[in-house]
């Protein structure tokens, strides 16, 4: 069901952990829905010098967190804001359709961290126009049982 890349990032996630005194910290999702993603960004001179995450969620949520952290590390904040869930999914060689929303979570977590960072510093990023950190990511309904 998952690509080898997803499984690799799930089994050996990059950048798990926390960053003390991180410039940007964001959390999205909620435990009720079964997924929480928390991201820590060290930002130095507009450059993301370090990223860490913690995720409570499915395999795909963990893999997309891991991939997203890799993809924004070393980038400028503006570049990081351009990260889309699609790009994350593609970098993982694709996700099953029902799992695409988990990649949305990763995009949102990055945005939420930067949103908090910008707010504290009174910075304005047009990429954050209309972004609401408390909005639920979409969830599909595909229950099966045995």
């Amino acid at each position, binding site marked *: 069901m998952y690509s080898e890349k997803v499984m690799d990032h799930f089994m050996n996630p990059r950048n798990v952990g926390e960053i003390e005194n991180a410039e940007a910290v964001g959390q999205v999702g909620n435990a009720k829905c079964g997924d929480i993603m928390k991201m820590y960004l060290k930002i130095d001179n507009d450059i993301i010098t370090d990223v860490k995450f913690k995720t409570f969620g*499915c395999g795909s*949520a*963990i893999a997309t967190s891991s991939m997203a952290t890799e993809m924004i590390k070393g980038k400028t904040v503006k570049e990081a804001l351009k990260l889309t869930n699609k790009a994350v999914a593609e970098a993982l060689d694709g996700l099953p359709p029902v799992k695409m929303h988990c990649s949305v979570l990763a995009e949102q977590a990055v945005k939420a961290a930067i949103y908090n960072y910008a707010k504290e510093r009174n910075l304005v990023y047009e990429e954050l126009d209309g972004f609401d950190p408390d909005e639920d990511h979409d969830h599909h309904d595909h229950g099966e049982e045995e």
Partner: protein
Amino acid sequence: MNKRVYFDYSATTPMKKEVLEEMLPFFNIEFGNPSSIHSFGRQGKSVLDTARDKIAKTLNAKSDEIFFTGGGSEADNWAIKGVAFANKAKGNHIITTKIEHHAVLHTCEYLEKEGFEVTYLDVDQYGLVDVDDVKNAIKDNTILITIIYANNEIGTIQPIKEIAQVSKEKGVIFHTDAVQAYGNEIIDVIDLSVDLMSISAHKVYGPKGVGALYIKRGTKIHQLIHGGAQEKRRRAGTENIPGIVGFGKASEMAYENIEDHINKLIRLRDKMINELMEKIPYTRLNGHPTKRLPGNVNLSFEFIEGESLLLSLDMVGIAGSSGSACTSGSLDPSHVLMAIGLSHEVAHGSLRLTIGDFTTEEDVDYVIEKLPPIVDRLRQMSPLYEK
């Protein structure tokens, strides 16, 4: 992956080789349609009756009270819709519980849209229905009570005999979904006094796509599948002879040494529950400690989510299942775990490991070895976990 251990017997079981062997001739040698008069067909008829006899015997039912279906879900649908529509002149109220299998739950929800009224009874923290709640829920227009015998997720076994008794006293038809209980409990329909009971072959080492409904003589019920005169005109469709033969054999084998089967499973189950709970902190047992299916282990590990747990287990060859929404991509975790009062977070971290006839002590030891570090690894990644 090297080792592969199967801990999902409640989802489905592998067919026993004796079962397959009995089925084989009926695919292309003795393949006739049992409704036919010629010799290709006549053989079919008598093997159907033999299978029916075997199953009837395991339930202490009469042979002509066993009706073959295309599975457990069909049996549930038939029982509930069949009774509802056949008795709607008498009333439109149905009583069930909040922890039914979806085959019952969604059928009841459908009937609500068609003008029936359904009471969904609460259960306690162990998943047990209170017999008094059943009694109090019965109204003048109640036509059916349907309650799951043993729950597929948490394994809790209901006081079916007491509930059936209440039902009988009030003259209400009683159905039980015994898909999980069958082959794991000693069942006597006369002693229990149930009117209808659903069972399914693939849960007892028989073939998928075959089930049966026990219908006590005289029970007022419509057909679900109309057509030819098979199954004494009550369930149409050319009989799945190999499947039915396999079901007969599997049922016979399941009850041959049922006590040994139950005892073995209970021992492995309790070993697994005890050792895992000892080794892994923040763990809770879901379902009743003793009134539970002999092969059912259902644990919630706080701070982690079920799908990632299952995936991790799969990587070391362990096949289990979970009540987490993320397994299925649906928003809400299992309605059963919610009904016994788990919070969403805890429900998401639940794991069901079910034991069966081919499970060895070694397999159990393997899980006891592999699971704790996996839980720990995922907890380390979780934003909810504070060491």
